[in-house]
Structure formats: C-alpha cells, structure tokens
C-alpha cells in the first residue's frame, strides 16, 4: 500500500514537470499560386483585370510584406461571340488597406451585353495560362404588383417585385434617392441610400441594408424613407436648400460565379461556431480568384409632393399623382 502511494506521487511529480505550453509552427512552404480577378460590369465601358501571386510571411501579419505581388507583362484577353477584347493597358496604385501596390490591366472600350458568354484568358511570361468563363445574367422584368408611389396608399412600406429568368442567381437591390443641395448658391448633386429599416440601438439609428440574395423582391419601411430623408438635412435649419429629384431602385443580378463567390466570402456562420479552414471559392482554371459579371437595372418610383413638403424640402422631377 505504501509502495503504491509512493509510486503514485512520484508519477504526479513527473507529470507536473511537463512543460505547460508547447510551441506551434503553423506554417509550411507551399507552391506558387496565381490569382486572377475580373468582374465585368454592364454599366460602364471600363473593365479591369488583376493578376497577382501568393507570398509568404511567418509573422501572421501579411501586411508586413509591402512588395507588389502583381504580375506584370501578362497577356490578358476576353473572348465573346466572334470578338476579343485585349487588356493591354496597365495602371499601378497603392492599396489603402496596406502599403502594398497593385497593378491592374484594363480596357476602357468594353461594354458587356446580358445573356452572353465570355472567356477570360491570361497568359503569363513563363507561358503559364489561367482561364475562366462567365455568362452575363439575363435582364429582369419588374412586376405590375410593385408599389409605384411613395408613400403608397394605406401601407407603411414600399415593395417592389421582379422576375428573373435565372432563379439561382443573387440579386442585390437597394433604394436610393437623388437630391440637390444648395451650397452657397450652387446646386450640388448627392445620392442617399435608403436601408430596409433602421434599428434603434443605444439611442443610435443603425441602418439595416439588404444583403444579396435569391429574393426577387424588396420591401422598405416608410419609417426608413422618413429617417433617410430626415438625415440629409440633420443640423441644417434651412430645409428649402434641398431638392429631392428622384427615388430609384437599383438591382444588380450577379452571374453564377459571382453568386457563389459572394456567398462564400460572406460565410459568417453563427457567432459561436469555430471554423478553422475558411472556404475559398474560385472559378479560375489554373489559379485562384474570380471571373464574374453582373447586370444592373433601374426602376424609378414616384413620390407625392405632400410627402416631400412634409420635410420642408422642394420636390424635383416628379408629378403629383394626388392632384
């Protein structure tokens, strides 16, 4: 019995002598990875592509590497129908998130069309080739059941509905209004986004904007319009300096690559799950990054003069349907 106790306590002392923390080296050298990013936009003729390479730091502070990771002298082009657009010009800028520089390839004469297939190809100096494909989404159709007046009759929210031939694509929708502010006699144009609602937390109104989703509708509370309109002149007693021009709903339909990329990037998970390996979607063959596209459409919604007057503002380009 005594022997047993002796051995036991000897064992405990041995255990207590073990180190309390072991070092961990989470790094290992990997192969070269090439990154190609290009999002084609249908609302402008200026299209850009970015080509870069991975890098290695061992201090968990990747921003400490201030080298330009862009790859120069690559040959980037986009094929569609029977045409090709070459991204022959480059521009180098600094990233405001870090000290790093980035180089872009661009073409400023490239308007994209809906429902069209595009093929991106980047040929590097060493002959290595990266490729990807996108098909621009089809246009959406707005439904007649949508509200077309602010404020709507007998409702305290504004809803707009649309249909899309591509059910499985993300739609990013937002309301905004365009207004002029008289600044020392000069009418300056501004835009203000209207969230779906405002949440009052700790006496502060926090705007809640819709995330891109499969939803083919958006509903905005009238309180949100009220607050957004109120905010533009907060602290300014001369309300007549403000002219409200128009209310517009903008809808961006992401292509399938951008849909997947965005959803992957916004993988928030719940607050308490711990994920150790973050997912990383790519559609670049031979590398990483994204080649996607979107189409943007607009829907104008009218407003009553009384509504704008109630804020002390001047109504702009709209007709008073109540009169």
């Amino acid at each position: 019995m005594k022997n047993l106790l002796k051995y036991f306590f000897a064992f405990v002392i041995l255990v207590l002598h073990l180190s309390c923390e072991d070092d961990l080296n989470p790094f290992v050298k990997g192969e070269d990875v090439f990154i190609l990013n290009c999002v084609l936009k249908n609302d402008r003729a200026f299209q850009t592509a970015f080509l870069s390479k991975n890098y290695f730091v061992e201090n968990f502070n990747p921003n400490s590497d201030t080298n330009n990771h862009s790859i120069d002298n690559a040959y980037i082009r986009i094929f569609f129908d029977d045409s090709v657009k070459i991204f022959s010009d480059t521009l180098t800028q600094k990233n405001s998130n870090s000290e790093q520089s980035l180089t872009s390839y661009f073409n400023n004469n490239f308007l994209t069309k809906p429902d069209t297939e595009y093929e991106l190809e980047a040929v590097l100096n060493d002959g290595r080739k990266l490729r990807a494909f996108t098909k621009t989404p089809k246009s959406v159709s707005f439904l007649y059941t949508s509200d077309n007046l602010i404020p709507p009759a007998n409702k305290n929210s504004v809803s707009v509905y649309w249909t899309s031939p591509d059910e499985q694509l993300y739609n990013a929708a937002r309301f905004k209004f365009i207004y002029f502010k008289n600044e020392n006699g000069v009418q300056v144009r501004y835009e203000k986004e209207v969230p779906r609602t405002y949440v009052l937390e700790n006496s502060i109104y926090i705007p809640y904007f819709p995330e891109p989703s499969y939803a083919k509708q958006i509903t905005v509370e009238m309180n949100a319009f009220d607050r957004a309109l109120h905010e533009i002149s907060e602290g300014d007693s001369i309300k007549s300096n403000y002219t409200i021009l128009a209310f517009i709903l903008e809808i961006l339909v992401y292509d399938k690559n951008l849909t997947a990329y965005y959803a992957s990037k916004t993988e928030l998970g719940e607050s308490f799950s711990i994920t150790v390996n973050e997912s990383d979607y790519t559609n670049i063959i031979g590398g990483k990054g994204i080649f996607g596209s979107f189409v943007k459409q607009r829907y104008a919604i009218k407003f009553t003069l009384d509504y704008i007057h109630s804020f002390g503002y001047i109504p702009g380009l709209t007709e008073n349907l109540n009169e």
Partner: protein
Amino acid sequence: MDFVKHIYFLTFFLLLIITSPQKLNAQNVGTIRGQITDINSGESLLYANVLIKELQLGTSTDANGYFIFTSIPPNKNYTISASYVGYESKEIQLVVQANRVTKVDITLKPISFELQTVEKVGQKKIETNNTDVGLQVITMKELEALPQGVETDLFRSLQYVPGVKTTGDISSRYYVRGGSADQNLVLLNGSPVYNPFHALGIFSIFDPEIVNSMELYKGGFPAEFGGKVSSVLNIITKDGNKNKFNANGSISFLTGKVLLEGPIPSGSYIISARKTYSNSIFKKFLNNQDVPLDFYDFSFKVNYSDQETSEGTKIILHGFSSQDKINRDSELSEDYNWKNNLFGIKWLQVATNSPVFWDMGITLSTYQGEIIPKLSNVKPQLNDVRDVSFKANFNYVFDSRDEALLGFDIKDIQTKLKLENNRGAVSDIASKGSQIAAYAKYKFLRFDNLGIDIGARLNIAQLSNNGGNSIDPRINITYSFIPQVSIKLAWGKYQQDLITLTKEDQILTLFEPWLITPDYLQPTSSTHYIGGITLRLIENFSFNLEGYYKLTENLPTVNENKIYDSDRDFISGEGEAYGWETSLGYNDEVINIIGSYSNSWSYKTVDGWIYYPKYDIRHSFNSGFALNIGAGWLFSVMWIYNSGLPFTQLTGYYDKYYVNDIYFNEDYFDSTLPFTLLGDKNLARLPDYYRLDLTLSKKLSISKINMTFIVSILNVYDRKNILYFNRETGERVNMLPFLPTATLKVEL
C-alpha cells in the same frame, strides 16, 4: 438474389435455435430468478454480481435489474451471494424446487461513508463466458469518483474510457474508434435522443442524478441495436425511491437542480429539473466570450408494478424535455433555440413460472434546432426530427443456460431541414421514412469457459429509399482456456441511414442537423473486427487489451463545393480505423487505480483524397487514482494525455478580392485583403494535450440531512492546451485554464 440469401440465412439461424441440443421442458431441475435492489430506495442495481456458491455459478443482473439461473439441481440448499460496487455484499439461503421458478429478491445495503467496499463476488465466474468485448458499463458510483468539473457530466466521463476521444474541453461530443459523432447511438431508457447536448455542446443534457447506470458499446454491439455504425450508449435512469419520499437539491457555479422521488401505490416516481442561473462560467470555455445562454432539462419516470393483480408486470412511463436558448438583445444579432422532447411507455413482463420475459415500448422523440437571424446577416437554419419508435424483445433462457432473443424495431422518422450553405445554395429537404427491423440472437452460455453470442438484424425496410432490405450478421465469442484468461472476438456488420450534416472544418459546431440519407447515396455501412484478451490474475486486479479494425463505406461527407440548390449536399466517402487499447485496474477498500492507453489510426477518403479526420488522436493515456480517506472524505486525481489533433498548416497568403461594396462602386484597390492559403488537409499536428484534475469531496449527515460538498480543480498546472489558432491574427486560443469549482448537494 441477395434477398433469397438472406432468407436462407435467417432460416438457418432459426433452425439453429429450434434444434439446439437442450430440453425446453427439462425435468428435475429448477430455476432461480430475482432482482437485486437497494434496501433503502428499492432501486434496481443493474449489472450486479450474483453467485451460487455451492455450484460456483455466476451471473449478473441485466439492464432491467433481473438475473436468472436455470438447470439448478432441485431440493438442495443453496447460498446466493450478491454484490455491487458501493454496497455491502449479502448472502441468502434458499431451496430450489424441481420444475419451478424460485424467486428471490435480494436487497443490498449501501456502505457507510467510512467504508467504500468495491468487492465483486463471483467476478471470475461471470467473466469467463461473458460476451462483452467492446462493452463498458459505468455505474453512478464509478461516475461519482471522477472529477466533477463545472457539472458532473456523463459524456465527459466517457473520455476516460480507452477508445473514446474528444476534441477538447469545450465540447462533450465524443468519437468512438474512428467513427464520427453522428455514428453514436444515444439512448435514454432505450429511446433515441438526437441532440444530447447543452450549452453549445459543452455539456450533455442528462442530469447524472437521475442515472442508474450506462452501458457503452464501443463496437461489435449485438443485434438488438441498429441504426448507427459506431457505438451505442444506453443510459438507464433510476426508478425512484420505492420506500420513502426523498428530495435533494444541488447548486454549482452554473446550475441549480432539484430531484424528487418517492413511492406511489404499487410503484415509484422520480422527477428532476435543472436550470442555469448564471452563465459567467461559459467565458472560461469560450475564450472570454459573453454568451447569454440559458438552458433547462426536466425528466420524469413513473413505474407501476402491482404484483398482487399482475405478477411480473411492470409499466414504465418516462419523459424528458430540454431546451437551450441564446436570446440576444440586439436585433442585429441572431438568436438560437434547441429543443429535445421524449415521451415513452414501456411494458416489461416476466413470466411467473417460466424462464421467459419480454418487453415492449413505444416512444416519441423529437428534436428541433433553429437559428433565428433577426436582422443579422446569419443565414436562417431549421432542423426538425420526429421519431416514433416501437420496439419489442422476447427473451428465453434455456435449461442449458443458453439464451435466445427475438425482437422487432419499427421506426417512423420525419426530418425537415432548411438552410443556406456557405455558397448561398439553399437546402430545403423534408423527408420521411420507415425503418422496420427484426432481429434474433442466440447466446451459447452452456459451457463455463465459452460464450457465443450469434445474431443477425434483418432490415426489412430502411429510412433511405436506397436502403432496401439487408441482413446484418453479428457474432461475439468469449473463450477462457483458464479462468484467469479470456480471449474475446467480435465481428459484425452495421448500417446507418440517418445522418448529420457536419462541417468538418468546424471545431465547435452549433448546428448539426439530422436528415435521412438522400436518395443519391447508399446507407452508410460498417464492418467491425474486434479481438481482445482479459486477465484476472489476482483479486481486485484486471487487465484488458482490445484491438479493432473498422471499415466504413458510403460515408456521407458535406459537399463543400455545393454552389447551386440542385448540387448535392453530400458526397460519399470511406472511413478506415484501427488500433488497440489496453486498460489496467486495481481496487480495494481504500484505493482505486485505473490506467488506460489507446493507440489508434483513423482515415477518411473523399474524392480520392485521404486525410485524418479532426478527431484522429494517435496516442491517449488516462490514469486515475481515488483514495477513500475515511470519515466521508474522498480524494481523486485524473490525468489525461492525448497526442496532438490534426490541423492544416498555412502555406502563405494571397490578396483576395472581397466584394465589400455589393453594388461594385468601390475601387478594387481597396477591396483586397490578405487571405490564407492552406496546405494539405489535416497533415500537421497541434501540440499534445495534458490535463491534471483533482477532486476532494466530503459527505456528512446533520440531523436527517445528508450533504455532499465537492471541490474540483481542473487543469491543476494550468497547461495551455491549444484549441485552435486564429489564422488571421495568429492568436493562440487555448482550452480550459486552471479552474477551481465547487458543488453543494443537499439530500432530505
């Protein structure tokens, strides 16, 4: 063709039973049948040892608390000796009559605080033909000797069992012999429980105060268990005090709980309820994160057994309910809600004058897990499971001591799952199915040194549309060429078609929804091969060594590349696990020492890639020491060592394009951030895990009040056991620090 083969197999099996060489109505022998109960409470003592001294015949009580001896030469005096851990052994004399069942109920007296007898009479006699390879029985007395921690936890106690792994202090999810967590069948009084966790998985939902005992099959489980391919944990709750009303309450740093039990006419009841009153302790588990977590659980059991009007009948009503909620004040933060409900009724019948007994029961078990996003960006998720089960078992004990079991297991299960994955793809899956299984087994126990448990489970209908019908044969053999040494072998086939959608890259998962195996996958199937040896060389000393090999096919794995709704949620993989485990134990009146070691390998193959699953631990060593100091004092020490868990190393960074402005008005230059590049999955190892825990408890009686005060210290030398490291910041997040806890228990 396969079906014909199965029919042949079953026919052969039934013939084997019918033609087995013994006499069903043997003349001039008697039978002894009885129960072992606690003298104070009337509570059945499960797995207690019983020995007929004159014949040197041994057995143990079953999961219902009954024992039986057949083929006893009649008209002789016999001494029946009964023992159970924590109770004084007892001997009684009786005379056995020919062609009759002699009933004997033995009551055992709990030992005083001063003396903790752990004598097990007849242990060698029982184990020489006990077909129990892969089985671990844990009684409440044994559980009490383990470190308490914040809460005494059933699942955490399993980590001391060789072959059972956990991935850290913050989760009580367990992994058995290379199987995933959803491959463990968890039963409460024989009824399935789908989400047996409280508090983000930190604790199990079962209040240990209501538990009588639990049996864990680490593999090779017999034919009456099905539906899962890795392990079976069967938790059997107490019946309640049959003699007097009893109330007790306890309070820990986390919960307060009450337990009421007492007699009713011809029966007893037990009710327990537990609720959180503080959640500050969660900070220790969750890296100082504030979690407004609130949980409760409630359980009851009512037993009715009127021996005057209906001898041998016992009716049991039992129920369980638990709920966890995280409700946050901010509309911009999501809420959580998990609920389990279970209600069952069971009829147990022991035939009055023949060695036959049967039980049948019906249960409804539901689970609902929900993430309510409110105005946050978190995706809404909902999982509903509704399980209605009917199970019946018919047992017969032959004069030769052989036993036969025939049974049916019928389930109707509905699952609903709504979620959006990390690619934005929506899954809205509602499925229902019926599972009909018949099983039979025959236990050859006629030889003292040989036990064979041969059985099969005939899956007539399965939940999955691809299930079809199939037969799962199982065999378990124990042979003792000398009484001190037993060789044990087991082999069996197992199937599973109710699975969870588990993200492998999450080390703490809140939402692991259940669903029926989709039509595009075959049900998971597994084959177990187990071999072992048990040594009983000296009294109070035991040594076990077991080796296993487990091959799992059609292993569903979450499709991380799902992009569109139409893409599949799962892809099929394979699993392979093998290893060996050994345990050593010594106990006497004062000291209890246990030690165990396991050396294991597990692999998963998905899409042609082979990798270690997150719970692959190469070496595990547990040792425990309990000292009965006397005068109600008990001191125990547990030390755990696990070699490092797999993790994926970083190979560097690249500048990833983040779509910060969903309307694409932002400059690309301001939209890139460094993103980590990963090496081969789970190829590296985290540092080893060590933990030393101490527990000191004192029992005392003041007037008619019994009190127990327990102080535990977890992680005595404040070992910085790593949970994970944050890839973005390099921050090392550790598990539980040095943590003293205390619990006070009061019993009226």
